[in-house]
């Protein structure tokens, strides 16, 4: 039988607010264990949570970016279970009335656009982190993470392949980064993706039995885990076995999922509204304030780069990849750089140089205005592109004003015709072979001669002018 997979994704995002969601402790992954703790996040007797408004702001921003409806009235609930990483033995979360609901995210897969429904995005608190000594014996709990604000974003079962899941996660992460609400670091756990996977006979409209996969540490891991699960489930069904509804862990080393089912009994979380917290009431003005604060989002920006600035699909994609890069590009254009040239420099030399240094645009010392200035110097013939390329590593490393550097180092292009004509005669004399080829009709031979002239001027010659002078000289003979 032919099957089709149906996939939904749950993504947990740690919001990068300065303090935790219900107390004033620092929200910092890199602090020593149990240093960002207080009676509230340790669940001491008598303490009370107070909701961090920054969490509501950030969650609303994500909700709006995902085209969600923002609830005018939502509430915080308690979700109960016993585990040493859960200080109060309940997690404060949102059960039946999430802050954000009924949104969507448009993604692109193989050039085609596809809409993934967002069921909900709700606010909750992260748990502490348990660590165990190798071989057992001692378990420790680090409560730094307990009470870190967490946004859970849940999709509809609208995803039908591992590639679509990958595209969704990539687009979602891009939005979260644009909003600057999370570090989105999967290795550090600030972004965690858990796919729900089921398969059904192709054409069927009912859903098959699903499994949930946890412990996936990268987007490509998610893709592999989904591919594995689809194959595993299809194989089970084909051989007459049933798929069991369960949680499975991704074993990245072996490339397989493993059942994590401990007991048959389902959890009864005994949700009820947290009486310690007031309902979250959002009025029009609050929602509007957040809407106004939203940056231009990745898709809109890419569209503007293509339609208004006439960039190619590829360039618009690369330049718009991160908000920092797109901001850099926009700033260069505002400073007067022609968009296409700015995009060429960024997607080419600049990103390549940064990549060599395992760095990104935020570490680039060359200001966008300096890039515009450099492009201007090429445009007005002050320097050649070759010189610009030579200058670039220094500019990226140390910054500075390109014009001043060009003058200081004497890199101004030689555009003096008399000087270049003299040089052209010498080049023709020294390289009679290529000169003859050109005369015989091989126009490409001029490239070699121009190259020699550029070498002789240490790149300072105006290549266009040299080309012209050499062509004239050879044609007039």
């Amino acid at each position: 039988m032919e099957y089709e997979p149906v996939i939904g994704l749950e993504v947990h995002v740690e919001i990068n607010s300065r303090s935790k969601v219900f107390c004033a402790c620092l929200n910092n992954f890199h602090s020593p264990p149990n240093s960002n703790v207080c009676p509230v996040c340790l669940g001491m007797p008598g303490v009370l949570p107070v909701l961090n408004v920054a969490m509501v702001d950030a969650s609303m921003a994500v909700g709006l970016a995902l085209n969600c409806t923002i609830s005018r009235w939502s509430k915080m609930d308690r979700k109960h279970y016993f585990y040493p990483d859960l200080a109060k033995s309940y997690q404060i979360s949102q059960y039946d009335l999430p802050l954000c609901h009924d949104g969507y995210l448009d993604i692109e897969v193989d050039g085609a656009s596809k809409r993934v429904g967002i069921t909900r995005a709700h606010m909750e608190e992260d748990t502490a982190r348990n660590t165990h000594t190798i071989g057992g014996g001692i378990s420790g709990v680090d409560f730094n993470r307990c009470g870190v604000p967490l946004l859970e974003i849940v999709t509809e079962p609208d995803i039908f392949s591992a590639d679509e899941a990958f595209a969704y996660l990539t687009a979602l992460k891009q939005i979260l980064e644009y909003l600057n609400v999370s570090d989105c670091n999967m290795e550090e756990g600030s972004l965690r993706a858990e796919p729900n996977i089921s398969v059904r006979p192709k054409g069927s409209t009912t859903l098959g039995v699903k499994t949930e996969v946890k412990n996936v540490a990268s987007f490509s891991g998610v893709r592999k885990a989904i591919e594995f699960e689809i194959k595993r489930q299809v194989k089970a069904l084909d051989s007459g076995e049933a798929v069991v509804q369960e949680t499975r862990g991704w074993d990245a080393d072996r490339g397989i999922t493993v059942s994590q089912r401990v007991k048959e009994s389902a959890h009864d979380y005994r949700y009820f509204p947290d009486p310690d917290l007031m309902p979250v009431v959002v009025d029009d003005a609050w929602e509007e304030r957040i809407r106004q604060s939203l940056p231009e989002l990745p898709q809109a920006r890419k569209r503007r780069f293509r339609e208004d600035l006439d960039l190619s699909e590829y360039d618009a994609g690369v330049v718009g990849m991160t908000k920092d890069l797109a901001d850099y590009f926009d700033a260069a254009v505002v400073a007067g750089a022609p968009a296409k040239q700015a995009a060429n420099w960024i997607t080419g030399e600049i990103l390549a140089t940064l990549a060599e240094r395992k760095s990104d645009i935020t570490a680039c010392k060359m200001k966008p205005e300096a890039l515009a200035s450099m492009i201007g110097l090429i445009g007005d013939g002050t320097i050649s592109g070759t010189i610009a390329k030579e200058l670039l590593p220094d500019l990226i490393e140390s910054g500075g004003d390109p014009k001043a550097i060009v003058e200081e180092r004497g890199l101004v292009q030689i555009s003096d015709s008399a000087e270049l004509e003299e040089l052209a005669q010498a080049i023709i004399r020294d390289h009679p072979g290529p000169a003859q080829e050109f005369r015989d009709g091989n126009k490409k031979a001029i490239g070699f001669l121009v190259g020699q002239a550029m070498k002789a001027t240490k790149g300072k010659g105006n290549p266009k002018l040299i080309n012209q002078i050499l062509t004239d000289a050879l044609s007039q003979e």
Partner: protein
Amino acid sequence: MSAELFRLSAHETTARIRSGDTNAREVTESYLAHIESVEPKVDAYLDVWREPARARAEAIDAAIAAGQNPGPLAGVPVAIKDNLCTREGRTTCASKMLENFESPYDATVVEKLDAAGAVLLGKLNLDEFAMGSTNENSAVKVTRNPWDSDRVPGGSSGGAAACLAANEAAFTLGSDTGGSIRLPASFCGCLGMKPTYGRVSRYGLVAFASSLDQIGPFTKDAEDLALILAAIAGKDPRDATSADLPVPDYSSTMRDGVSGSRIGLPKEYFTDALDGEVGKQVDAALQALKGEGAELVEISLPHTEYAIAVYYIICTAEASSNLARFDGVRYGYRHPDAASVEDLYRLSKSEGFGLEVQRRILLGTYVLSSGYYDAYYLKAQKARGLLRRDFDEAFTRCDVIATPTSPTTAYKFGEKMDDPLQMYLGDIFTTSANLAGIPGLSMPCGLASNGMPVGLQLLGKPFDEAALIRTAYAYEKSGAPTLGPAPLG
């Protein structure tokens, strides 16, 4: 003279300290000596902080000598229920679970008492985790009623009521979830107030039922209620449920009198279930208030019969959640023989909690369980809304509601312990105020023929504690007979 200092009210005490008539150290010594003499018969304290209290009193005296104002409660000795967190000493909730627990922080009310210049004498007994009506559920000891040592002081703030009635502090603080201040105040013949939900910060009160709990004072008179409520009330940024409303000057509104005030008498509270002796004293108090110019009007609170059922569903549900954190992992009792995490939870809770606490955790777990939530918890919340509406409706026709605090006077030890349902029914007149979130107080209104105090309960509109204090003050000034000191006081 200093031998009698422990008999003074809080406002008299601080006035005499300020006037130089006495000093905080002298007052504190008077109380410590009196505690020494009566505590063996009352057993209200779980811990007396003798040296910290002396040091604190000296600091207050030094501040006064230096011309500073140490606050409205300067030098007044206070003791507090042991479910309020203090850095000093232990915070045990009278439970084996927390017998060695030291809080890393002070409750907001403790900070406020400090800021007001009060001298903390120590921590008081209670029913374990504030669950009970007699103090017999304390895992530590039994507190006796200062009016009759064969009788219970009431609960759960039994230690706080008995301590005050025995003059072992100038005032005390307790907590009231379903009557835990008003019932023992009634049984022990003192004033006790449960403020409006949100009036006093709950930060640092070990939670029993978060939507019902309020901290409040036990005092010797109405003027002290005014003084102390003003000192502990107000918005606290650490408690999201505390109300951001101004705190009135109760000491001045207190003297406005009750002339023209309408006192509502709910017909559902004055029934055959009421002990005749109690009814007689309550009626006399109402006549005294009428003599002061108040108008008595009959009102109806039609959903009263559901209050106990609703209360025991909501309070146990919240308790099962609030007490889940006592798992033996980070603090509190930890069973030494646990072989697994599940064992650790099961054994620590089974041995750390007493039977009544376990009963309520199990009840609460049940009513929140999948499949039962709608039938119990959700339905109870809806009924709670109806109870609240009853009061809204009633308060369109009266300013204050008056009822007996309890159908009976204090029970004898053991009288109700075999039948939890009978015990729960003792809360019949008090739980509604918690469910509706409105303020209530109990004030003594005479002795029954068995020699035990009877309490009059006054209920007010939300955040209108001023009307309750004004009414209580008017009653005190009406010339109605006062109780005099308790035999063990």
